[in-house]
């Protein structure tokens, strides 16, 4: 039965003056007019948004000008350093104006849709978020330009994958200090070895803040053509040093035949004077050249060996995960554990522990594991095992919960015993999901183990982290490539295997 509606009480319609006063008040406190108009939910939403946005704006201004005091200096500095704050402020004022207009019409009894107001609030929060989280597209674009070289090293690091052993090419001349009556003979021109001939073969060394040493004219030959030759000295006690002249190391470019000529002044004395009457020094030209057979670089070998370590790390963690999670999954399967209140308590206990363990990231488990067993792959295996037990335990138990009781009933009806029923009715149903989940978990574990090394869990992540810290971007690039290739292959293989089993 429909009861006749009581006629609504005739409300005195507020006059325009009242409405305008309320509207002005609403400008300063959005939501107030709406409250008067008995739009409680709208009023509360507007008040809450106003308070939050206002608070955030004040905080951002203070944050932008931390050392200033007083309203005006903070305001001026804030909009100078963070121009977006001005924009946000303008939006907020528009919001206040719209709120007061809304209040005016509500007081006058005109129903209005507040969707526009709330969209404006959402926009305000968006720009506040933009300002708050320091989003800077300009920096992104310029940084992209500056980082392009390093990025290209990471993207195509293969020049670092091959190295040639280095070889020293050296030719020397003996210099007597100071000149005796019989200075040493000039060195010979050798047919197929680098040589340096000095003219003269004796002289005096330079003295600090004193007279310059003797000039020498050096002629070299049989060096690698068109490559710098460093001019170096060896003193009588076997110290080798590069000679500096005018602050620069001396080096000379060899010509097309591998020869060079250069005039130098003998270097400063580095030894005590009273070593003997005459000293025999050697001046020599030296080139460091990579001439040997190309071979895999140390970095490449390291990356490969650690990648293999990583894959097995993931595999071992998965194996241990299976061993522990299979029995646990039976305890966490509701259909098996609903027999009595004791088993139900065990069920909830196991489920709870699994959920807690699973909600802690493997990276955190790795940190905990390194405290116990130290750095290395074993810590990574422990961390991934713990997480795998929790994740697989849940997946397995759900597979057990979803088995169809029909076939079990049918097998029992044939006169089969308990073991036969399990073998023919239960296992065929749970093997496919178990295999599928396990492969998937292996996939995840290998992926996780590539980064678990960053916190000391061994594997390639450890190398990657080191190389990034050493700014060796090419080596890091090699590691990144190996990780990407391995993960892609694994992803494909695991998807294929799972397809077969489902």
């Amino acid at each position, binding site marked *: 039965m429909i009861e006749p509606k009581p006629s609504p009480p005739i409300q005195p319609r507020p006059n325009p003056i009242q409405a305008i006063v309320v509207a002005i008040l609403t400008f300063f406190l959005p939501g107030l007019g709406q409250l008067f108009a008995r739009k409680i939910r709208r009023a509360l939403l507007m008040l809450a948004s106003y308070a939050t946005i206002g608070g955030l704006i004040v905080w951002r201004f203070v944050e932008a000008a931390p050392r200033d005091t007083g309203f005006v200096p903070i305001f001026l500095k804030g909009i100078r350093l963070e121009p977006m704050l001005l924009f946000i402020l303008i939006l907020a004022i528009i919001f206040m104006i719209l709120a007061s207009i809304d209040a005016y019409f509500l007081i006058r009894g005109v129903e209005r849709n507040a969707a526009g107001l709330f969209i404006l609030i959402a926009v305000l929060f968006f720009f506040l978020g933009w300002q708050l989280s320091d989003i800077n597209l300009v920096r992104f674009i310029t940084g992209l330009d500056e980082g392009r070289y390093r990025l290209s090293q990471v993207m195509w690091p293969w020049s670092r994958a091959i190295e040639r052993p280095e070889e020293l090419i050296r030719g020397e001349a003996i210099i007597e200090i100071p000149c005796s009556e019989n200075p040493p003979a000039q060195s010979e021109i050798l047919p197929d070895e680098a040589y340096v001939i000095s003219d003269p073969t004796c002289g005096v060394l330079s003295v600090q803040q004193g007279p310059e040493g003797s000039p020498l004219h050096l002629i070299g030959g049989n060096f690698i053509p068109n490559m710098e030759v460093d001019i170096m000295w060896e003193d009588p006690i076997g110290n080798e040093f590069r000679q500096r002249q005018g602050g620069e190391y001396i080096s000379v470019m060899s010509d097309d035949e591998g020869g060079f000529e250069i005039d130098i002044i003998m270097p400063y004395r580095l030894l005590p004077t009273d070593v003997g009457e005459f000293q025999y020094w050697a001046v020599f030209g030296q080139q460091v050249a990579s001439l040997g057979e190309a071979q895999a670089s140390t970095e490449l070998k390291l990356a490969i060996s650690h990648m293999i370590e990583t894959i097995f790390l993931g595999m071992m963690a998965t194996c241990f995960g299976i061993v522990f999670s299979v029995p646990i999954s039976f305890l966490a399967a509701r259909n098996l554990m609903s027999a009595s209140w004791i088993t139900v308590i065990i069920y909830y206990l196991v489920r709870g522990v699994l959920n807690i363990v699973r909600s802690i990231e493997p990276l955190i488990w790795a940190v905990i594991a390194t405290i116990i067993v130290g750095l290395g792959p074993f810590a990574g295996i422990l961390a991934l095992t713990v997480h795998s037990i929790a994740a697989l335990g849940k997946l397995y138990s759900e597979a057990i919960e979803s088995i*169809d009781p*029909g*076939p079990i*009933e*049918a*097998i*029992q*009806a*044939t*006169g*089969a*015993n308990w*073991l*036969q029923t399990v*073998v*023919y*009715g239960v296992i*065929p*149903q749970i*093997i*496919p999901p178990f295999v599928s989940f396990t492969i998937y978990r292996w996939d995840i574990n290998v992926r996780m183990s590539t980064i678990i090394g960053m916190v000391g869990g061994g594997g390639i992540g450890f190398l990657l982290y080191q190389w990034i810290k050493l700014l060796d971007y090419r080596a890091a690039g090699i590691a990144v490539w190996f990780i990407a290739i391995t993960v892609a292959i694994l992803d494909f293989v695991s998807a294929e295997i799972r397809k077969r089993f489902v």
Partner: protein
Amino acid sequence: MLEVHNLTKIYDDGTVALRDVSFKLPDGEFMVVIGLSGSGKSTLLRCINRLIDPTEGEIIWNGIDLAKLKGKELRETRRSIGMIFQHFNLVKRSSVLTNVLAGRLGYTPIRLSVMGRFSKGDMKLAHQALERLGIPEQASKRADELSGGQQQRVGIARALMQQPKLILADEPVASLDPVLAHSILQQLERLNREDRISILCSLHYLDLVQRYATTVIGLHEGRIVYRGSARDIRAMTDAEFKDIYGQEAERVGESIGGIIQDA
């Protein structure tokens, strides 16, 4: 010969599924149980092979009280009672052959069956059973690749592997279309006539009951409210009909061979 005396089943939650049910099923009969969903048909069939333990009563099967059997004796007795199901209850991911051979588990030593091995005789029997049901070429397919009608034939083949004296059929055609329903029931009828296997079958459609049953019992809220032969079904009165299907049920059309509509 199956004799059921004063069978009562009360579930743990207090639901009374069967009250004081008694009937006799002489060898070679095709007995159909009719009744609404929830009237106790499934419970009755499952009590007979003890998939459900009855609360009270006796189930005398060839002189042995099934209700009192336990363990090995129960399993050995179950071998002579095959069962087929509305949803076929095949192990979907196993092959058809494995599903059929599962019917032989009661006769196979545990040691061998756990290894997945069956005797040559059993293999031959399985292929014969599939041939007899008209699906010999499906043996190596996965069970869930087959159509509904074919799956039910596999279910019958599995029951046949037990070399049963009685087949319990729990709404065997309820998930099938009318044409397939006839073909499945014809298979059961053939087993009934050629092999003298008794059939105890629950059905929903009265035209099927008329066509295949030799004797009929009707259940309503766990009690037997109707007993008759196939001929009696034809002459069922409205009062009898309402006893079985409730006061709000309506018979569709003039003929008795209509479809029951639940109120």
